[in-house]
């Protein structure tokens, strides 16, 4: 098994390395699907350049990353520029390791839960019980999915700062599942500081560790202290608090309407100005409004809740990129046992493949050939996001169905009549 891991790590690293050094990279790295105003390496370089020239970076409209990211990138560009590729690949490999660790922790937890609840299950539930070998295979597939997902490969090869965010996210999830309250709080603070939306992971974290009050206090303390320290360091680095409007203000008000795979740019290009604030609030609330209902339903499975929240924020955030999509999708094999219950895999699969192919084509037709327009590209991204929503709802419904079958048996009968489960 270890050998298998080594092989896929090696292959994954090679895939990234070859893409980075091939001529294809110039076609890929500045694609709007991969590099957004928030994570584009080009903008990071510009930010570092301006910072080096003593020009206030956050005063202008080019760089929107956090000051700590700026400082780290400055170090990378100044002192390690020859090893940049290797560093980004290494970061992705570390992310994979965290994901694997998180996934195996989660499977152990699933097996423990199954053992505890075995007595409550229906008598004919044996066929759908989890088997250790299966789960272990799922863990391996998580690693494979992250290492070979074209979305994450492209995102890493384009040197987007999503690579940093993904590493922090994976560490946060790992800390959550392991129950390391202190580390969870700290890493959550870091990843929130870096890209804001992951703050909703606070809810699954509290659900996971909520059984002891002490842990909850620890989470909050370490979260707040870390945020405080980060802000303090940031204001020192950037010489003021202007970075707040340039980073979080930018994320929240989405002034840069460069096309991306998200939903914001098109709507806000077309919108009447007096509706702007209202719809801005509506769109942003969309990323968070599902936290409460999902947390109520999935309170016993915070990991699945995390996945749902990651997916929803990947769709509804103001500047999503393929790196975010690749990250949460690579976690899906953990729920291999739910695949049986998925109803729309074919549809979602076709949608993802066709939109991934059509997206760049429509973009080229619009921007370079001038024979299409923004609607063409937006239609594709809309379908892409719809596919992601289908995927998440399908998975959540599969989870619900499996729970039903576990406790009520595989036969579905209502008052003696055959019945079906439906999502309404």
């Amino acid at each position, binding site marked *: 098994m270890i050998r298998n891991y080594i092989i896929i790590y090696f292959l994954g690293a090679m895939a990234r390395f070859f893409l980075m050094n091939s001529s294809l990279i*110039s076609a890929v790295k*500045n694609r*709007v699907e991969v590099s957004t105003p928030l994570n584009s390496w*080009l903008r990071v*370089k*510009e930010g*570092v*350049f*301006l910072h080096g*020239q003593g*020009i206030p970076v956050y*005063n*202008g*409209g*080019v760089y929107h990353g956090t000051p700590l990211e700026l400082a780290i990138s400055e170090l990378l560009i100044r002192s390690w520029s020859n090893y940049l590729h290797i560093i980004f690949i290494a970061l992705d490999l570390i992310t994979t390791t965290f994901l694997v660790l998180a996934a195996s922790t989660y499977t152990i937890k699933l097996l423990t839960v199954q053992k505890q609840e075995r007595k409550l299950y229906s008598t004919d539930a044996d066929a759908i019980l989890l088997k250790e070998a299966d789960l272990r295979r799922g863990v391996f597939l998580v690693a494979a999915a992250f290492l070979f997902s074209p979305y994450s490969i492209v995102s890493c090869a384009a040197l987007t700062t999503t690579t940093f965010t993904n590493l922090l996210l994976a560490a946060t999830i790992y800390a959550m599942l392991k129950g390391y309250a202190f580390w969870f709080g700290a890493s959550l603070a870091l990843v929130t500081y870096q890209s804001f939306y992951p703050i909703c992971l606070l809810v699954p974290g509290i659900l996971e560790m909520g059984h002891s009050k002490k842990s909850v206090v620890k989470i909050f303390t370490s979260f707040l202290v870390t945020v405080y320290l980060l802000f303090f360091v940031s204001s020192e680095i950037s010489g003021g608090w202007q970075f707040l409007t340039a980073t979080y203000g930018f994320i929240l008000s989405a*002034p*840069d*309407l*460069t*096309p991306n795979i998200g939903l914001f*740019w098109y709507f*806000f*290009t*077309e*919108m009447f*100005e007096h509706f702007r604030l209202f719809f801005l609030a509506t769109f942003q609330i969309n990323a968070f409004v599902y936290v409460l209902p999902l947390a109520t339903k999935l309170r016993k499975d915070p990991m699945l809740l995390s996945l749902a929240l990651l997916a929803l924020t990947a769709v509804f955030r103001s500047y999503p990129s393929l790196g975010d999509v690749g990250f949460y999708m690579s976690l899906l094999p953990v729920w291999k046992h739910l695949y049986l219950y998925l109803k729309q895999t074919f549809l979602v699969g076709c949608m993802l493949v066709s939109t991934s192919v059509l997206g760049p084509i429509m973009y080229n037709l619009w*921007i*370079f050939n*001038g024979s299409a327009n*923004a609607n063409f590209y937006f239609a594709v991204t809309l379908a892409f996001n719809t596919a992601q929503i289908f995927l998440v709802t399908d998975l959540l419904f599969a989870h619900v169905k499996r729970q039903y079958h576990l406790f009520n048996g595989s036969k579905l009968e209502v008052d003696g009549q055959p019945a079906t489960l439906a999502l309404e």
Partner: protein
Amino acid sequence: MNVIGIRMRPETLFYFNIIFVVNCFQLIIGSVEDYNNAFSEELLIRPLPSGHVYSHFEFTTLWTNKRIKESILNYKDFDFVHYDLFPRAFGEIVERYHVRELHLSLTQGLWRYHKWGYPVVEAPPGAQLWTWKDLVNALSGLFCASLNFIDSTNTVSPELSFRPLGITNPSYSQNSSLMRYTALPRENVCTENLTPWKKLLPCDTKSGLSTLLHPTPLYSAYYHSLSLHMRPICEDKDCRTPVLELVQSLSLVQKLFNEMDGRQDWTLRSLFSAPLISVCPLSKISKIYVDITENENLEIFKLDPLPPNVETQGEGTAKRSLAIYDNLMLVKDGPFNLQARYPNKHIYGIIPVPSLQVSRFITGHGLERGSIRSITVKLVNSCPNQLTVTYLEVLPWYLRLFFHTSHFLLPESSMYVSKLVTARDRERGWLYEVVVTLPPHSTTEMQLEFGRALLKWLEYPPDANHGFYIPSALTMKKLESKSFLGMKIIDKLKSKFLKKKSKEEESKEELSQKPSEDPKDKDKDEDRGGGEENKKGITLRKRVKEVHSIKDLAIYSLAV
């Protein structure tokens, strides 16, 4: 107090030899008495080697009294009373908005430096302005121009470019925060701007040279520029009599060719649809100058009537000869229709290029950011001296510049950024000002990469099929202290001359500029850019210091 320069449209602020001469005369003749109000009207006609005819009208109002003197010397706001020749509508705006100096130009068309040489006054295509919101709105009303589109997103305060043209002290002239510059490259100029502009003249269009300004020939010209310049100047060497000067000028480039006979003949009537019938009775000077450089013997073209007076200035390439007509004498005998007759057909030849040429164009394709699109600027120094120029780029926020990838392809020259203001979406535009040293006989290329922001539907300009216009870039040059031309005339004269002179000098040996276009850029939304250049006469400053020990005179000139 603030210095406000307003410029519109691409041509305007350069005074060259010819004008210099013009002014000298004007001053000599008109300025001796103890006046506090003087008006002069002048017209310069210069046939260009490209077959075009360049006409430049200049209407100058000088005004001084005790209050103005005090305001100028003590840097106080102007406080005007008892208007006479100075236009009250304009004076009230100056008073109200604490303006010390103002330059405004409205231009249609592009000055072709490589074909036409340097204009007397230069301006970039479109409208240009330096100012505050309220002032802009007031001027908008005064000139019926869309100056109200000027706001924080296109107003800048460059560090080195645009020094005051009038008298100032060093601390004042070095404080660039007192100056605002802006340009509206898309502003159209037409009769609705000409009429209010003419109304500022003491004689309106009722008599004098302004009766020649009929809209039809003006707006069918290849190049047309209206401008207005106000600045404080000194009337004497010790600057005991500071004067407020208001220059209203209008430049035209026309091609009258009749293809059938192929001669460059022109007459006042063919140029302006009317002969001169009167002189503005309020003017001290009313003259017409015809540039007869290299035609002193009137062999290339003949003037009818023969010029009563011919003046020659300068030497070598800077030599200029002018035929001078005093309108007052001429209109006595009825309508005066000055005529130039060419015995031979016009021959198109090689036109000597200006010593500094700048061209700017856009490379790349598509509307996206990335390495594919960049603004490329080519600075060609064809003179034997090394030149140090200031290059100023003022760009709208929706171009996203990337400086870490921009570069200069320099042979053996150096550059540093004197001021960089980064844009913020919908709030502030770009200001990029660099000082570049150009080796003799060299071509320097600069590339600025940019991306384009996707705009909201309301942010697109009307007539989106035009694409976007971006303001002209400006190149300025410090004047080296060289031998002054025409010293004898200048001797008696005032600082004003000195200024003009500086320009002359420039024209003579230093630079030039040229507008550039980017004909390459066919695709949609990108802009048209005009390169411009500009020079700055800082040397003068030194010299002037000797003359007026207290006041520092800074000079600048600007070209498109």
